[in-house]
């Protein structure tokens, strides 16, 4: 299966600058139009299927990208830059309160559609939430986006050795939580 890009997918929706809009505004608007949906999907995984936290994460990451837009444009690895911004938003506790108190997974959502992701695989959502954030991110980047160890290390801001050990511990923990299936967790 082709690994999905973390934020990729240029769909060619270039727009002209609106009245009073700077070049940065125009570029950022195009970036958000093209990539927000994919960022949100990654964020849903990074937050263990929590749609509210995922939205918070994407908003925080996009705000940081806008502030440092010129640095983002100059980055050698723009995709890596975006991944790092998402992870930093996941682990940055300083800027705001993260309302992590979610309903227990088996509960039905109050509003249809609110917990679409959890409804897709509540058992996996529950298991991912048992992992510390960076360990969860290692799983998402390695096994969903299929990044290599070096790319994952760059996204997490840790060494490659740490990625290997975190990934191994994460898989052990997931195996212990998830019910055995014919294919298991592989």
């Amino acid at each position, binding site marked *: 299966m082709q690994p*999905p890009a973390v934020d990729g997918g240029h769909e060619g929706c270039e727009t002209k600058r609106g009245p009073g809009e700077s070049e940065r505004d125009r570029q950022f608007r195009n970036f*958000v139009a093209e990539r*927000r949906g994919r960022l949100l999907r990654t964020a849903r995984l990074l937050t263990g299927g929590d749609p509210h936290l995922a939205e918070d994460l994407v908003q925080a990451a996009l705000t940081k990208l*806008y502030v440092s837009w010129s640095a983002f444009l100059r980055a050698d690895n723009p995709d890596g830059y975006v991944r790092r911004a998402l992870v930093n938003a996941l682990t940055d506790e*300083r800027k*705001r309160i993260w309302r992590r108190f979610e309903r227990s997974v088996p509960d039905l959502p109050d509003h249809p559609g609110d917990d679409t992701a*959890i409804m897709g*695989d509540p058992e996996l959502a529950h298991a991912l939430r048992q992992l510390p954030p960076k360990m969860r991110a290692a799983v998402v980047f390695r096994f*969903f986006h*299929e990044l290599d160890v070096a790319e994952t290390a760059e996204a997490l801001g840790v060494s490659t050795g740490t990625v290997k050990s975190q990934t191994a511990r994460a898989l052990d923990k997931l195996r212990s939580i998830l019910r055995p299936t014919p294919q298991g967790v592989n």
Partner: protein
Amino acid sequence: MDLHDRLERLGGPITPASDEDIAADLGRGQSAVRRRRNIQTLAGGVFGVAAIAAALAFVGGGHAPDSVPDRVPAIAEASPGKLTLVKYRGPQPKNFTVDKVPNGFFIQVSDEAQLIIAPKPGSAASPTPLPSARPVETEEMTNKIGIYLESKEYRGELEGEKLTVGKYQAILDPPSVSRQLHLSVSPHTWATVQVAVDLSKDQIIELGAGLHINQELIDRYGK
């Protein structure tokens, strides 16, 4: 089904960004840039060379997204010294009550989800030194203390110093830009005190010991 497929199902479909989403993201970015400029102006005009040096030292470490210049130090530009805790004399909120707050701070937000303690505009600790200025936005947690309930399940295993704070077992995160004190208020629930102001470890513990949470709220969250 392998892990990749399960993750794909959990991640859900890619939904295109709406015009409202895009406009809101752009607006948040523009606001953040304006805030950054205002802080830089204040640092230059009010707090002088030491504050600028502190800010430069903080933002000068590269261009990775975690070091973008909006991450100014939590308190260095606003307060030349450590804060002191004083008895809180204002009206007590319904769900969270506090015995003490840092001098010059007030309860900015209180609802069922959170308590936010922020510096009063015009106080020594405030990044907005003019008394007539609006307090910083409620969602911005720099220079503030946030208190909230959170699920132990979501947090996973916590690392830090194990303590007894008041009647609760607690864990204090290692020192960082901000610190968090997690009080175990029920088998399922942490009450987290998130401190992004200049308080010592003992002061954070004192603050936590003076925190009281409505039992009904704890029970409701822990269900």
